């Protein structure tokens, strides 16, 4: 087998040195009756060419050749080939968690840079590296708020990503947290009155997302004011990080939970991505996840180490701030390289292109008879339209034109049937937007 570096003779020699007659002898501590007698029934062995062939065949059964208007927490953005070239360097790819700081300074410094970039983007003072994704980051932010406030009620906006809310509910069910949902208004933003009415002095956290699941940008000042007045933590989830290149960061937030997928990570059918929690310095000791800190060595040189580990499971066990161990380090590195490539100007320009393309797409779609915009709040690269008929039926027709249409909202929001969430990033050309608008118009003109 090509991955195994021993010849049969070397195996024999090693067995001899151990004093074992056969390899079987090394497994003697497993009771005889439980040892497998037959080979496992799994396909293979495959040569490298066969492995590639298998996956190319599977790839051909997917969506190659389609233009997609899906976002909803997973975004297609331009990525430089440089990012993959860097993260595939074996020194990064095949290194472990940097517990041995002297021989992992590369990873440690890169994490320190990641933490800095995340602080700059979110307007927060400290950021970890990393959580599994935006959904678990949001959940862990709530658990952090629970520890900080000692309270157990959580108010989460219904305009937060449905899957983020699902994950929060799974975790909450068993940790005594009580989750309540807050409605959205006709503008698609959090219903501030409903939030105010639900506020009491037992609320640990208020969770909003911005841009929210409908693509609408929330106005934080009033929501955060009401939240802070009752002593709760204001938690802001960010699912589309590129928006922070153009939109004011949630400075009012006590905790920001961000999904880093938009920073150089491919959609990859839903993962691996990189979640981040950013917060205030004063809350750092209740933060979950890894943190890298700057320090000096015995000769006074600058260096980096994993720090504040007394929060973590390998030290604190059942008293840890989280059970997270393996995180999404290589994804965080990809985000670091990607954001460094983009830089100040590149990120701003990418964000502006998203805004422009989405604005253009909306104006094209609104020319189609029967298509209306639903929520009128300001948006970044996603917006909701109402169609005169079922989104699913329309989308089925669009597939014939090799277009993957917008997300039907009726599944997650029963009151939003015939509404569709359209995402347009910088990767979609004007011609594709026009083709989509044309195909949609035609689909709606077909007799039902």
């Amino acid at each position: 087998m090509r991955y195994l570096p021993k010849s049969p003779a070397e195996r024999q020699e090693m067995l001899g040195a151990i004093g074992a007659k056969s390899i079987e002898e090394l497994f003697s501590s497993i009771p005889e009756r439980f040892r497998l007698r037959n080979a496992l029934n799994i396909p293979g062995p495959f040569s490298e060419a066969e492995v590639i062939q298998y996956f190319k065949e599977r790839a051909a059964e997917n969506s190659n050749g389609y233009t997609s208007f899906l976002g909803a927490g997973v975004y297609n953005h331009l990525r430089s080939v440089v990012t993959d070239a860097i993260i595939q360097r074996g020194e990064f790819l095949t290194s472990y968690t940097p517990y041995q700081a002297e021989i992992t300074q590369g990873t440690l410094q890169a994490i320190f840079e990641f933490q800095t970039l995340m602080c700059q983007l979110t307007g927060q003072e400290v950021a970890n590296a990393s959580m599994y994704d935006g959904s678990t980051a949001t959940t862990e932010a709530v658990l952090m708020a629970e520890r900080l406030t000692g309270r157990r009620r959580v108010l989460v906006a219904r305009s937060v990503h449905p899957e983020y809310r699902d994950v929060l509910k799974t975790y909450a069910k068993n940790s005594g947290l009580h989750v309540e949902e807050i409605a959205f208004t006709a503008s698609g933003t959090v219903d501030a009155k409903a939030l105010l009415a639900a506020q009491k002095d037992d609320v640990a956290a208020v969770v909003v997302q911005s841009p929210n699941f409908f693509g609408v940008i929330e106005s934080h000042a009033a929501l955060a004011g009401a939240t802070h007045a009752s002593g709760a933590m204001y938690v802001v989830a960010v699912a589309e990080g590129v928006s922070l290149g153009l939109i004011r960061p949630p400075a009012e937030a006590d905790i920001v939970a961000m999904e880093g997928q938009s920073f150089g990570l491919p959609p990859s059918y839903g993962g691996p991505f990189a979640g981040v929690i950013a917060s205030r310095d004063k809350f750092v000791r209740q933060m979950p996840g890894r943190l890298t800190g700057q320090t000096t060595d015995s000769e006074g040189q600058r260096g980096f180490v994993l720090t504040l580990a007394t929060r973590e499971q390998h030290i604190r066990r059942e008293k840890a701030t989280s059970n997270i161990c393996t995180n999404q380090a290589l994804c965080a590195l990809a985000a670091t390289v990607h954001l460094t490539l983009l830089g100040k100007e590149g990120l701003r320009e990418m964000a502006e292109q998203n805004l422009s393309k989405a604005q253009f797409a909306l104006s094209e779609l609104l020319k189609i008879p029967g298509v209306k915009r639903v929520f009128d709040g300001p948006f970044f690269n996603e917006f909701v339209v109402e169609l005169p008929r079922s989104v699913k039926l329309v989308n089925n027709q669009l597939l014939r034109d090799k277009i993957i249409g917008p997300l039907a909202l009726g599944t997650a929001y029963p009151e939003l049937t015939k509404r569709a969430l359209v995402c347009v990033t910088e990767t979609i050309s004007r011609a594709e937007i026009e083709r989509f608008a044309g195909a949609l118009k035609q689909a709606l003109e077909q007799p039902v």
Partner: protein
Amino acid sequence: MNEKIKKATRHTNQNEGLIFEKSSPGKRAFELPPLDVPAADPAKALGANYRREGIEGFPEVSEIEVIRHFTRLSTWNYAIDLGMYPLGSCTMKYNPRVNEFVARLDGIATEHPYQPQELSQGCLKILRLLEKCLLEITGMDAITLQPAAGAQGEMTGLLLIRAYLHKQGNPRKKVLIPDSAHGTNPATAVIAGYEVENIKSESHGQVDVEKLRELVTADVAALMITNPSTLGIFEQRIPEIAEILHAKGALLYMDGANMNALTGVTRPGDLGVDVMHLNLHKTFSTPHGGGGPGAGPVAMKKILEPFRPVPILAEKEGGRLALEPMRPDSIGRVKAFAGNFGVLVRALAYILAYGPGVRQATEDAVLNANYIRKNLEGVFDLPYSLPSMHEVVFSDAIQKKNGVNTMDIAKRLIDYGFHPYTTAFPLIVPGALMIEPTESESKEECDLFIDAMKSIAEEAAKNPEIVKTAPHTTRVRRLDEVGAARKPVLRWKPATSRSEAAD
């Protein structure tokens, strides 16, 4: 230079500051295609309140500077691609490059989790085949691929147990955990809403079965066992342990972190385990990447199947596959979307490359661990003498007499060109040296490691100072961790605001 250091030589590497320190206004490393629609005015589209000016301090560098920056940083890392990485419990094995290649294919990396399922059959077939392979390897009945890492797999497993017991009328209160367990086990039990009760190991390092019999009451939901244990020893009485639990209505959870010792040789499902997680980034070779991403599938017996996290991968008529979002008894979602799909792709590529021959990898891993054990026994203290599986745990008891501890030896190993073993774990071995070579090491590399360890033991006896002040050859010397934690500096700030902060 010490002539006994055979594997490594000093060589020059480049200094490099933080990227923020290299930045200068007006430089860029990325250009977008020109905008082909009318440019929106952000102030008008968003309103002045929402608009942000440029991000202060964000990097401004050119492409060559980005390449050099990260390449220089990379050369400061040790990695499996450079040599043996004997971190016990971490299973640092070779990460095949073809796995990286296939995970990045168009049609794999490009797929959106919400695209129509009829355009996702390739993705779903990959998930289905991986499920089948892992079920065959574990001897279990059902599986979920959703958890993002081992610790999340543990949580999912305990939530399955909780949901099952709850359905029977009482979720129970406690989870039993041996004192040799990974720290994630107790941390997870708490998140799943359980109290933790530790069980002390008996004198051979195994679960104390007599004690267990006393502790398993109607309050106990489960025992979380690691097999082989963190001592690298197979829990020989595991079928009996399962019986004790089952007799009292409790379940047996197995932490599959050490599955590299068992794959193709025995199956947890056959041993009486009810539910377990696998660390695909350990046993199934997906790259550790400096700390992730991983994946922590959870395999289970039939009784737990109704409680699996949604969505559930289901086979429809005509062999079509679908992700079904609703199951009445499901514990819910543990993560958004369909798990760490890209990691799952790599794990399947690994399994397909071996096929049933994956047993050979297990055999070689156990052979390497025992070869190292045989050669270092006597040189280092072996606190538990039962047969080793894929890893061996020594202690620093002999070297301690000269004031040299496991951390010193580990740091000195760096000078010899190796990554250290795991230090100070498991907690039941004071001054532990936990060594897991994996199957990826040749006899030559194992011999170099053995030579290095013997040489360090000799130094510890004759010249302990050189060990205690190691490493001597790295870019940085031992770092001030206490200072880092006392006054945390967790991000870069521009020079001016830093001096303001100091005021």
